[in-house]
Every structure is written in C-alpha cells, then in structure tokens.
C-alpha cells in the first residue's frame, strides 16, 4: 500500500515541474552546428559557383541520390571558377539519408549540409532538388547554436588535424540568427 503511494508521489511531484515541452512550429530549437540538414551549394564571393562538376559527391553518396551532369565553361557562359561546371545538379531528398558524405567528398567545399530539416512535400517530384533550389538560401532558416562551444574541437590544434576537420566550414552562417 505504502509503496504504491510512493509511486504515485513521483507522478504527483512531476505536476509541479516546469514543462519541458517545446511549442515546436512557433518555437524552433536551435540545432547544433554539426547538425546535418538540407544541403546547400555555395558560390564564391564574385558570384561564380564553387561546384566544378567533378561528380565526386555523387561517387561518395551511399544511397546514389546525387546526379551531376557537367558541361564546359565557355568565355561567354562562365558559371564556375574551374574549367567545367555542373549543368545539372540534382539531389533526390527522398533517398538522401543525410550522412554528410557528399560534403566530406567535395574537394572544393561547394556543398555543405545546413540546418533545415523541415523538408516534407506532398509529391515525390517536389523532393528532387535542382541546382537552382540548392544555390538559393532556404527561406525558412532553422537557427543554430553558437559555433564556439559546440563545434570547436576540445583539443589543441596539433591533435585535431584529422580527416574531417571540416565542420566549422559546414555551416558558415552557423551562429547567425
């Protein structure tokens, strides 16, 4: 008898705790800087695309959801900084597993995974993101925690130059908003 009262007292105590519920669509919990969400393609400061259409991201993708069709840059149609550019660049978000291998593979930091995770659509076709969509900044941005405590590695420089010391570049806009 006493024991069940004890059990109920735990439940009762919780009545007076502060709720931990977050009012999700209105309140967006900031994600951590390393979070892997919607992809983004980047441009150089002068407006040229960073992607040179080398297809390395497509080769690295475990779920084969990236399609890259390269084309040559010509003097009157200069799209990227290299010799070639991606004429078609598509990511099928319905297949993507957000492993982040594409950003690890890309040697030119052209593609990174950003903060957004609200990607639901009502048709499969709408989930195939084209180059134009990926180059745009997503309209609704999910905020991110500050980079300094949550992304800078815990050890000094000499140790951390590992294979993936990329992440600070991952969300270049990280701390904003």
């Amino acid at each position, binding site marked *: 008898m006493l024991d069940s009262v004890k059990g109920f007292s*735990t439940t009762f105590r919780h009545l007076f705790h502060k709720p931990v519920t977050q009012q999700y669509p209105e309140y967006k919990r900031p994600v951590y800087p390393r*979070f892997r969400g919607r992809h983004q393609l980047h441009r150089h400061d002068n407006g040229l695309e960073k992607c040179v259409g080398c297809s*390395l991201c497509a080769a690295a993708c475990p779920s084969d959801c990236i399609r890259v069709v390269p084309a040559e840059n010509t003097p009157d149609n200069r799209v990227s900084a290299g010799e070639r550019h991606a004429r078609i660049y598509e990511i099928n978000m319905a297949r993507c597993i957000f492993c982040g*291998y594409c950003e690890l593979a890309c040697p030119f930091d052209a593609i990174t995974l950003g903060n957004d995770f609200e990607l639901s659509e009502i048709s499969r076709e709408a989930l195939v993101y084209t180059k134009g969509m990926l180059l745009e900044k997503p309209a609704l941005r999910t905020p991110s925690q500050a980079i300094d405590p949550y992304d800078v*590695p*815990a050890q000094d420089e000499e140790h951390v130059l590992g294979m*993936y010391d990329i992440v600070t570049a991952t969300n270049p806009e990280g701390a904003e908003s």
Partner: protein
Amino acid sequence: MAATEETKVWPQQDILQPVPSELWPDSDNPDLLEINLGPNHPSTHGVLRVVTTLDGEVVVGVKCEVGYVHTGIEKNIEQKTYWKAIPYVPRMDYLSFFSGETAFCMATEKALELEVPRRAEWLRVIFQELARIHSHLVFLGTGSVDLGGIALLFYCFRARDEVLDLFEMACGARMHPRYCQVGGVAEDLPKGFDRRCREMITFMRDQIEQYYELIGANPIWLARTKGVGVLSPDFAIRMGMTGPNLRASGVPYDLRSANGGYGGYRDLDFQPIVEQGGDVHARFRIRIEEMRQSLDLIEKALDGLPEGPVMTDDRKIALPPRHELHTSMESLIHHFKLVTEGFEVPAGEVYAPIESARGEFGFHLISDGSARPWRVRLHGPAFVLLQSFAKLCEGVYLADLIAILASIDPVLGDVDR
C-alpha cells in the same frame, strides 16, 4: 570474468536437443482460438506477427512471423565500398545504433590489422554507452506502456532526448550518426561536450531513482512481472542468448569483459551486472542497473580521456586532412582515389563481436581482397532472443505474453535487417 569460469558454473547439457522456436498446441480441441497479434500491434515493438493459439485466456501455441521490415542491408553492403557501407549499418539495430557502426568498423579494422588511436577507442566507449542508455530508455518506456503504466514512457522519452542531444552535438545527427569510421572516429568532441555530458549524467542519475520509485516496489507492477516468463540459465545458454537477458538469468557473461574485453573497455575496470531470477522483473531491473553502470563508465571515460589524434594516420585508409586538399596535389589525388575506389582489404575472414544493448552484435566479413566485402553476415542478438520467445510463453496468460515480449526487447530492424 573469464569464459572458462562460466562454463564451470553452468555445465553444458550432455545431449543438446534442438529447441523449437515455435509452440504448437498439442490437442485438436475445437474451442481453441487462433488470433493474430500484429504485425501492427503496438506491443510488438515493430512489425512482428505473433500467431497465437488460445485456450480460453491461456496461450497454448505461439508462432512468430518475421521479415516484414527486411531491407536487404547485408546484401546492400556487399555492393558498397567499406567506407560507404558505414551509414547503412546503424539502420539495422536502430535503437543502439552506435553499436552497429562500431561493430562494422571493428570488423574491418580487424581484417586490415589496423591500430586505432586510443582516444578514438575511448570516444567509442562513450558513445556506445550513450547508445546503450538510449536503447534501454526506449525499452523501459515502451515496455512499461505494455504493462499499463504510461507515465514512465514520458519520463523515459524525455531523458532519451537529452542523450540524443549529445549525439547531435558531437556527431551531427540525432540517430544514425556515422560517427565511427574505419580507423577511428569522424571528428573530435566539441568543447562544450564534456560539460553537457556531465549534466546529462547528473540528470539521469536522478531520473533512475524515480524509475525505481515508480516501478521498483509497486505491488501492481510486481504482481505483473515477478515469476513471469522465467528463463533458466541453462536454457538461456542453450538458446544462444546474450546480453542483459542472459545476465538477468544469473550468467555473468558480458563481451565487454569476457576474454579481456575489446577496444576502450580493456582499459576500464568493468564488472558485468548480474540479476537472479530470470523473470520479467529481473529483465527490467537489470536494464535500469545497466543504465546506471553506463553512466559510471561514461564518467570514467570522460575523466580519463587520453589526448591524441582521433583518426589513424594511415593514409591508405583515412581521408587526407581537409586543409591539405587546397595545397597538396598528392593529397587531392589520394582523396579522389579513396572516395571513388575505397581501400582494399586483404583477402580473409574475420568475425568481430561487440556487446550492444541487447547482446552479442558481430559482423562476419569475408573479403576477396577487393575494396568491397564479398560477404557480410550479421550475428544479431534480437533474432536469437526471439527464438526462445515461444518456449517462454508456454501456458501463460495472454497479457503475460505481451509482458514477456516486451521484456526480451527484440528490435525488428535487427531481426529482419
């Protein structure tokens, strides 16, 4: 405890008869009722169909149908290079996801005879234990719902979120982190991790006290769980059970300490937790105790975390450091080659088991010397656990069947893979 001592305590049966994994009713009584539990029954923890034959309310026949979430992951991995296969693996046992990654990477490292930096091994310990806590929390929450207590579900899932936050902070994803890589781990911990992790430990210790208060001495809970679904040590060993279910029957077998342990556990002083009784109650208790032990292990690992690199410096395996891609042509070529072709693994056969949240989780890799595994076979604990389910349910009430199923904690992603 060494493996030899266990065999002394629990002598093997002289003649091992195969134990059927199905239970058939032994009469053709026309009043027997056959019902389907599942595949979409909330208490099946996934998509498991249990064809149950009832005599009144007593279970006389049980047949498990598995395969509803078969995704061919083993076959898929054989089409991928070793590096590209890593994100697939945690999707098998999706509750202790980090164990899957670690097992696969450890099997590959064993085949490559590769040394892993010590810091990486300790980081793997931290995250394996976090994944174990995550898995046990889900077990406890959903298991108590099956027994009619909904409050625990909310408390457990709240605590689970704290654990997932740590994964998000360090690995980039809340589940399926692909943090473990062949030769080490992907990145070093962020600065704030240590503090947040210790906060989580304090919080969890308090929570675990509450779980005990809720179920530990609750007479309704005890009546539902004590003496139900008793698994004798001999039977558990004969069925090849591992993990907390085996230890709840009093067998002190844990791969983290058996044969000297593996990875970072070799350096940590570790004693497996054992419960006596082997009933549903013991299986619930041992998981709560294991969470407590995991918290201690994480704390120990955080205190003694060695300094050093987190990735092997073998350039044949690890991608070159990021900053070199812009400066060194050689690194760039290496990077291209590793991403497109992967690294080659010498021909041979390895088996590397680890202790996941439900028991022995091991990968059997056969390599033909190319960059893709020739055959991958997973020894998953949940499939083995499910085999003994029919025997456990012999002659119990239907409500107890649900309790037994909850207490052996199968994950259907691991059973079917």
